[in-house]
């Protein structure tokens, strides 16, 4: 346990309250996809993670069970405040949107609703898609000079969009190759 405590990264501004509120904000704003919001709040505004750390944590999350964003909240919470922080961040992320969703969802199911709601949602999801694409591009920027990185990013995109492969197939197929190439490159650089 003491070894774990040493790894923790206490910072004055990262109180349990701040963790809860920032993740609640992410949860409540994140319609369509939360990734854009996590990136904006955690990396761009609060600087709780660097760009590199964010992408690495997201990568690891893809190999873990459970929702990626929930796993990122676990990482950030435990980084600054240990197990309590992890639970606080996860609760912030999930509790408030769950209340809103259960209430509105039950109302939506119980009563007739005007067609305009569907149209508003259509506009929001088109924009949410744009936010997600922009977040991906931001994450790629630090690697734009590495040809191998661009190549594997393009390959992963093509695997999902054009070959219509399941996520797990793309990960299992490309990641070992991509790591092997990164290994060879770093050996040659030395």
């Amino acid at each position: 346990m003491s070894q774990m405590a040493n790894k923790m990264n206490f910072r004055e501004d990262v109180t349990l309250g701040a963790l809860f509120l920032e993740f609640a904000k992410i949860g409540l704003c994140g319609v369509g996809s939360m990734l854009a919001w996590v990136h904006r709040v955690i990396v761009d505004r609060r600087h709780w993670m660097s760009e590199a750390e964010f992408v690495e944590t997201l990568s690891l999350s893809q190999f873990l069970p459970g929702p990626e964003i929930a796993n990122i909240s676990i990482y950030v919470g435990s980084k600054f405040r240990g197990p309590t922080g992890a639970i606080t961040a996860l609760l912030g992320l999930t509790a408030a949107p769950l209340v809103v969703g259960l209430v509105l969802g039950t109302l939506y199911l119980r009563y007739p609703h005007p067609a305009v709601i569907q149209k508003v949602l259509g506009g929001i999801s088109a924009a949410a898609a744009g936010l997600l694409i922009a977040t991906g591009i931001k994450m790629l920027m630090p690697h734009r000079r590495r040809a191998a990185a661009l190549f594997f990013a393009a390959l992963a995109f093509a695997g999902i969009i054009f070959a219509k492969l399941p996520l797990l197939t793309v990960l299992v197929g490309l990641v070992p190759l991509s790591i092997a190439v990164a290994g060879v490159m770093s050996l040659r650089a030395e």
Partner: protein
Amino acid sequence: MSSPPAPVTFAAQIALLSLISFGGIPSVLPDIHNLVVVTKGWATDREFADFYAIAQAMPGLPMILMMSLIGWKVGGLAGALASAVATCGPSSAVAFVAFRLGDRFRDASWQRIVRRGLVPVTVGIVIASGYVLARAADNGWQAAAITGAAAGLILGTRISPLWILIAAGAIGGLGLL
């Protein structure tokens, strides 16, 4: 032997599925559909689809809301809460341990190489997800223009994404899509 009450059965099943939900809950949705609609008859196909659509449109983690809506149907408020905890509890415990272990080897050179290899694939997948979302929402060039404008505004300005979403919702509501 009497079987346990329905909400307990449901929560226990999702807790198990949560542990193997690599790539998120959508990867185990077929199993959940099988349990809820086919085997137990707790919800109809139509209700299952409605829960999915609502979960996608609401803020928050869609799958937690979807499981809670099913849990609500199965066992009221207690069922909803139990389902929410079962959806992300077990997988979160695994993630916590994994991050702690990963942190211990953070500075090892093999980990740096692994990360350099992982990152591009992840980024490709994120951009692909945005593309899939755009296609799912697509109603022609107007929707594509909104997607493009939203991406451009995020990359080129410091405007809050919230305003972009509100504006896009208004454009949709006015019937311009």
